[in-house]
């Protein structure tokens, strides 16, 4: 008997399989695996009820649409940001990585600093009041240095308890087995830098130490750090953005 098509598999999943089909699926691992994807779906459906989907109140759209007109001093960040942070070329970065000298920072970051695309700045209140108001101090589009494609967003926000955080949202960074990703704030001269910690997922929140001035360290940098015990920047930056001040 040839393999079962989707219709036959769906038949079995709704309890209508013929004896022939049931016999085949019992002996054919390929079809059994296909069937499992159908029965997994019926199990998921069985866990739902009609209360799962709810509608927001009708007036919510009015609240949102009246929130869209930007105030002059809280212009949306991305409207002014051109999401192309200049990329240093790969070869330069590879060489820089080999060299691992202080001077590499000039080659690495000169372009970023010189042609710095300033992300939007200003205090944009998010939220509608209550205790969830947060302020965005600065933001920047992130750019994949190898492809010059947009790679997410970095935002400096003030939480309601006054703590400043850097929120890094990046979906296209590949986590590697032999290295980890580290997030830095770097100054425009590419001399000083502050490590904020390890990037652990596509949404990572880093607490900013109180003394760190984002005007002084405006470059958000994500680097690949080999697990070699060397605490300094590897020179292998993959993603960057520049926060405005």
């Amino acid at each position: 008997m040839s393999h079962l098509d989707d219709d036959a598999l769906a038949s079995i999943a709704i309890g209508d399989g013929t004896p022939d089909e049931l016999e085949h699926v019992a002996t054919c691992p390929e079809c059994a695996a296909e069937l499992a994807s159908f029965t997994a779906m019926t199990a998921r459906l069985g866990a739902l009820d009609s209360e799962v989907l709810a509608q927001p109140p009708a007036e919510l759209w009015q609240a949102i649409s009246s929130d869209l007109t930007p105030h002059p001093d809280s212009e949306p960040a991305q409207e002014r940001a051109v999401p192309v942070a200049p990329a240093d070329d790969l070869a330069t970065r590879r060489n820089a990585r080999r060299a691992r000298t202080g001077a590499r920072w000039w080659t690495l970051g000169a372009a970023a600093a010189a042609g710095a695309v300033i992300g939007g700045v200003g205090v944009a209140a998010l939220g509608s009041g209550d205790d969830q108001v947060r302020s965005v101090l600065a933001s920047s589009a992130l750019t994949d240095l190898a492809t010059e494609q947009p790679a997410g967003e970095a935002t400096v926000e003030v939480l309601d308890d006054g703590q400043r955080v850097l929120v890094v949202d990046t979906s296209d960074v590949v986590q590697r087995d032999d290295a980890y990703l580290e997030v830095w704030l770097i100054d425009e001269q590419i001399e000083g830098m502050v490590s904020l910690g390890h990037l652990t997922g596509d949404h990572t929140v880093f607490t900013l130490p109180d003394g760190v001035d984002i005007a002084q360290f405006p470059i958000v940098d994500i680097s690949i750090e080999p697990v070699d015990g060397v605490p300094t920047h590897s020179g292998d930056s993959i993603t960057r953005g520049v926060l405005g001040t």
Partner: protein
Amino acid sequence: MTLGTSAHGRALARAFVEGDERALEELYRDVSSLVYSLAARALESTADAEDVTQQTFVSAWRGRASYDPDRGDLRGWVVSIAKRRIADALAARAREARREQAVQGIHVTTVDEHADKVLLACEVEALGDPRATIVALAYYEGATHEQIAQRLGMPLGTVKSHLRRSLIELRNRWEVSDVAS
């Protein structure tokens, strides 16, 4: 739910990125139930769910330049913003409760669990009638195929055929969205 990879979905995404407010309105009609339901389930508060829904659409609008239509569908992007806002709201609560670490760990899982349910319920809705109704009767309410046929005044064979087609479509869409996420 017509977003996604359809030509219409792509056109909508382009209009959205270009700053067409009508595109936002259509996006809202399409996805607000999903976002609101996710938030209401995770936060167990309709007031907080309304706040999160508002924040999500305002953030999406202000951040529209960072959305790349070639990289995934608009709905998924909005849902990812919603999940962050929900996580933020949970974290804010946790901070208030001064037990951030413990609570955050628990809630991160919860958001995703809710997300799967709400997303699937949306996919069922997107089947359109009569399939959405048939699937709901069969799986949400546990009605037999015969009971469904009787209630909808539909031949038994037609009910079964709709169920099979629905399962195939749901499974295919689910696999696509799993890959995309």
